[in-house]
């Protein structure tokens, strides 16, 4: 019995040591990773950052720092991936934008024939400052406020010009915020996006190496996933070219 108890205690300690990072130690791991980076031990820094990431923690600085580590260790494809992840969480950060631009300069291939959709660009500009959850809360808050004001107007049986202006203004804001939320949901949540992380990969006309090679892409190229098989994604690039790409050569953002 006592032997069994000892085994249980040891198992508990090991599990606690190797298991998920507790909230108390996450900041110390982050600080230790920063120290490693400061000492130019980029691999050690990356290992610590990855421990946080693998335990489900995320923040723009975490992904940004991981991008830096990948860049410094000669993996610019992964660097671009993590800068994009960081930018998703903090679209306005100048450091992220700078490093992303910088890393992209080393991309071996560029897409030709990329056409800019002015509507998408405009909607993207509007939604860029907000995450999907932020937009959902904003539209929900406006919706609730609108309904409360409408209820009050109905209950009080009237209301002057001021209440009408407030109601119509709230209605317009509700429509705009709901539209943006829907757009963000459809473009950023429903659609899976990814980036090529392998130095070079082939894009096939079908899911398998026995198909024709449509073109060869290099790291950093972004795409949208349209469908998938166990080993391949059917992807759509910014210049509207489609093809099948090996899953092991890419990462989803």
């Amino acid at each position, binding site marked *: 019995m006592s032997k069994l108890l000892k085994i249980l205690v040891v198992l508990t300690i090991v599990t606690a040591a190797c298991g998920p990072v507790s909230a108390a130690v*996450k*900041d110390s791991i*982050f600080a230790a990773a*920063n120290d490693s*980076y*400061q*000492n*130019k031990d980029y691999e050690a820094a990356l290992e610590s950052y990855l421990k*946080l990431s693998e335990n*489900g*923690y*995320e*923040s*723009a*600085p*975490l992904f*940004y*720092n991981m*991008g*830096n580590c990948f*860049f*410094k260790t*000669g993996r610019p494809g992964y*660097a671009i991936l993590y800068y994009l992840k960081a930018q998703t969480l*903090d679209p306005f950060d100048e*450091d992220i934008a*700078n*490093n992303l*631009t*910088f*890393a992209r*300069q*080393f991309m*071996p291939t*560029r897409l030709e024939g990329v056409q800019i959709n002015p509507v998408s660009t405009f909607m993207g500009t509007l939604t860029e400052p907000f995450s*999907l*959850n932020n937009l*959902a*809360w904003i539209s*929900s808050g406006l*919706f*609730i406020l609108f*309904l*409360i004001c*409408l*209820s009050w107007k*109905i*209950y009080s*049986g009237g209301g002057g010009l001021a209440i009408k202006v407030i109601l119509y203004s709230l209605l317009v804001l509700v429509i705009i915020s709901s539209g943006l*939320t829907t757009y963000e*949901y459809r473009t950023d*949540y429903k659609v899976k996006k990814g980036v090529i992380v392998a130095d070079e990969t082939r894009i096939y006309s079908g899911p398998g190496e026995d198909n024709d090679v449509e073109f060869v892409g290099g790291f950093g190229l972004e795409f949208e996933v349209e469908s998938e098989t166990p080993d391949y994604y059917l992807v759509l690039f910014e210049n509207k070219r489609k093809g099948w790409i090996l899953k092991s050569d890419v990462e989803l953002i």
Partner: protein
Amino acid sequence: MIRKLIFIFIFSFVWSSGWCQDNVTIEMYISPDTIGLDGQAMLSIVVKSGRQNLPAPQMPNLSMFDAVSSGTSTNISIVNGAVESSQAYNYILYPKQQGTFNIKPAFIVLDRKRYESNEVTLTVLKQGVGTPKGTQEAAQDSQTGETRDVFLVAQLDKKRAFVNQQVTLTIKFYNAVRLLSQPDYTPPQTSDFWSESIEPQRSYTETINGRRYNVIELNTALFPTRPGELTIGSAMASVQVPDNSAGRSRDPFRMFDSFFDRGVTRTVRTRPLTLDVQPLPAEGKPSGYSGTVGDFAISSTADKTTVEVNQPITVTYKINGTGNIKTVAEPKIEETNDFRVYRASSDEKVSKLQGIVGGTKIYEETYIPKRAGNLVIPAVELSFFDPRAKKYKTISSKPINITATAASLNQYAELPIPNVAGRVIDPNAKDIRYIKTDSGRLEKEKPLILLTPLYLTLNGLPVLLLAFVWVASRRRERLASDIGYARSRAAKRMARKRLGKARKIAGSANAAEFFAEIRMALFSYVADKLNISPHGMTGDQLLAIVTGGGADEDTVKDLKNLLRKADFAQYSSAKVSAEDIKDSLDKAENIMVKLEGIRLEQAA
């Protein structure tokens, strides 16, 4: 500060005026090098330099010819920011006598330095000999023996070549009459060749069989893509020429015809040509040879040789020479244990100097040292087949010695920023920015709030509130405007109130007042429900309404008995027992409950 500005100004001026790129070359060409006394040759002097606006070359003595300038042509190319200018001065030479003439070098003097060209030799034979036999045959109509007015000739500069070796196809259009339209030219089929047009087209005159022809010459460089007996199809040209069939007319107005003459269409063709294309020899073929044919050189330069670890070095590999430059394989540069390697940029420039296709390919590679120490960027090899020497050659760039020092803290790599079309790069961006020391809101990944029950409930509650407020508002409005509805809704409450009052009275032994309240409660309830006055309503009317509403027999009977008991108590002096009062109160409450369950309607 002022000194710095002066230095920058002087440096910019010197650079822009080309003083820093003094690689001036001057070359002289003659084509053809053998002509007849009635022929002509083209003499070209080409000056190449990294700067523009060079002085015209000093021409050699050409007194043994009639030399006529046929203009100059300028070609400026920019490869990786380096400007290269070549200017060709062309002269047509008409011989005055037979013989072999050595033309001395042309030269220019630049910055007190003399740059000389090569010498060329022109052989002048007797009249008519310089023209190739094929051309003379094409100029003569085999049936009539007369010379043709227009004809087309195709020639190859070689009869035998190797795969991917340049062969120059020359198409010449001869005309000895006035042309009424531009020649409509159809080039020959060259499906087994990779072709490169050599411009510009040349125009000159040539005397064949004693007749002077205007000649338009087109040159195309052909590179055979496979071995074998390859055929070059017929070229064709159509042109409008004057109709000479009516030339013997004695019409006095014939002189005006030239103004309105639309002429006749003449279509001329070349004969198909064949070329014997030899395969590249298997003997001596280097491993990794990828089909490059020509004569090339490779060089490499590094922008610096001493750097810190993780700082980049840009190495420029330059391959130049003659041959099909577009098919030159790019050098294999692989990552080493000492360096990470990135392709920074590549550029390609095709040159067609004096009909010889060649050019320059430039690859810029970024080497980033992984460790400190004396490192070597290895030599890069290039293998090609030289068709003149008829053998394979392998050349290589020189290895570059690099001294990599340990990186100092807080020193970031300064990586090069290649120019990419369409991309605007912040010129201040020299490296990735430093990491963030603040972890931010380091939290577990949040689920999408849109689909959670909390979010849906939170948004659903105000909808329910709105519905409730709307219903309440409508009810309040109806109560205010519809008295019948208001009385009906209040009937139960009022009846209960009266029954409560009766209950209070029940203990006071005032039976008449108790039953009056009971009676009033029942009558008022029915009257309120039907929005009629309870005053003047009789017991029979009440019973009729209740019966008509569908009340069961027991309820009607209880109601009848209760009304009778109430009448008896009100209008007789007989004493009513306390049990009767309690029993009557219970029955009244029971009847009220029953009445609430039926739909009362006014009796007819």
